[in-house]
């Protein structure tokens, strides 16, 4: 699952996949703005065929948190 999340993030933010790690967040990924965040959410939902709740959306502001949320599904 981790690899697929990284791949999606790499695609959406147009950054190298090996630059994505636990602390990846809007602070260190330049492209990660509010519009791209929406794109990330719908892309992850499509990838894993799940739905993020409103809270999940707000909470998923870095890689480690996204993994937590996906693990809880």
């Amino acid at each position, binding site marked *: 699952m981790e690899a697929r999340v990284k*791949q*999606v993030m*790499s*695609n*959406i933010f*147009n950054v190298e996949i090996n630059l994505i790690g636990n602390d990846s967040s809007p602070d260190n990924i330049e492209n990660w703005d*509010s*519009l791209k965040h*929406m*794109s990330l959410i*719908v*892309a992850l939902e*499509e*990838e894993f065929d799940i739905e993020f709740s*409103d809270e999940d*959306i707000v909470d998923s502001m870095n890689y480690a948190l996204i993994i937590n949320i996906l693990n809880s599904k």
Partner: protein
Amino acid sequence: MKYSEIIKLNNELEGAINSPDYKIAILSNIMVHQSKEICEYSLRIESVNAKVLLGEYDNIVQDSAKFQDANAIVIFWDTYNFIDGFQYKAESLSNLEFENIVEKVETEIDLVLNNLKDSSLVLINKFSSLIFDQFSLSNSRINKLVLRLNVYLEEKCSSNVKIIDIDKVVSRLSIKSSIDLRYYYSSKTLYSIDFYKKYFEYIKPIFLSTTGKIKKALIFDCDNTLWKGILGEDGFDNIRIYQEIQYLALHLAKKGVIIGICSKNNPNDVNEVLKSHPDMILRDENIVIKKINWNNKLLNLKSIAEDLNIGLDSLVFIDDSSFEVELIRRELPDIKVFQVPSREYEYGAMMRNISNLFYSPSKTEEDSAKTQMYKNQVKRIEGRVEAGNIEDYLASLDLSITVYVDDLSQVSRISQLTQKTNQFNLTTKRYSETEIKNFILNNDKLVLSIEVDDKYGVSGLTGLAILCKKISKIDTLLLSCRVLGRNIEYKFMEVIVNMAKKHNIKFLNSEYIKTQKNQQVEGFYNRCGFNTIIKSDNIIQYQLKTDRYKNEKINYIRVKNGS
């Protein structure tokens, strides 16, 4: 394909397509930023170098002035966002308040259409009430308003505007799958990723037709494709004609699509069916080209493209056999191949989808006469084989060209020629009807168009040259592939040079802009006596001293004055 993959592949295709940018501005009164990559990707995979420019949120009027020069403008004008919360406020507004909103929108429609009146192509979504409509027997105010505004829009828009029925897209997907309301109230995003994928699939043929990437010929296998059964085994009386498929193909033929047959069969058997099977819908006169023999289909399809003088990527082929389908997909990937579905009742739907590949925006008289013109071309090629000596053969054709200068009645056909001609096209500049009209009305530009006749018939408008007088330059020179191989191009050059002399042009400039398809004309200007001035990778500039021009003495082509 998944959205994140689309984004990735779209990034990879950026800069990888060797053709000029095709700028598409998307204007909207809701947030549609996710449309960008999906739109670009849908076109980049067809080698259209699409670049999407997104307008500002809810700024359609100002943006329509800002982006009027884009190659295409797409407008998402969402009814429920005429004012914030219109979907729940509409029923409670007073008549006056409601009418004020309507009036504001109508004024904005006028402004937008006026700003875009000279744009090449405008796609505007029909106003729709589907998304927030109640499942109720009574018609809401918004239902009625939408009908009214669509009539208004229809009346006001000119020929460069296409109205897109967005409800067709929503109904393919369901309302629920078309929208993602999570950000609607906070950020005014409305549509889902699935919606955008379907939407751009739906409108893509318009872009393909304006960029010259549309398909031109539909080639059928026979057994289990045009009819059920194997003619050679089951016999004339025991095949069952697929009438739905043939009616749909006949309709395409009438719109100017080339219909052909490529089949492993005995030619006499198939011809007998075409001629006298009582249930057949397609007849010999509808079939432009036939390759009925026992050669392999790769050879036959290649020679179909050659005989018709079109690229392999203009062909669509339908066959029932997995073997043939796979073979062609592997060896000739430029040809779009479809396999007859194993469930017979799905064949009609597939055929309707295939019809979309031949979308043509404006129907001209010539489109309907095209079948005959292509047939004449194939007949000429057959004649050529017999004639042996090419010059004698050409002389036997009674060729003539009719020249029209700045003829306003031909605007639509001229624009089509610029958009569809790929091979004999020196600069491959695509012009909209509006642009052509402006050239004709403009004193500096001379628009020369030609028709070619021979003893087999009229080829219709098949050649174009645009001359800029001030800079003494040939801006555009093209000939439809239907008239190539007859030295028409050299006679046409004679006409062009004479016209230049008439306007006191001493040095005539010209250029060749290389594309993937126009290599055959790379040396054309040199062959006509032009000197190379500047040569770079993709562009060669030439000049001709007009009083030094020696014509080719082609006596067997007569020149007539059409205007």
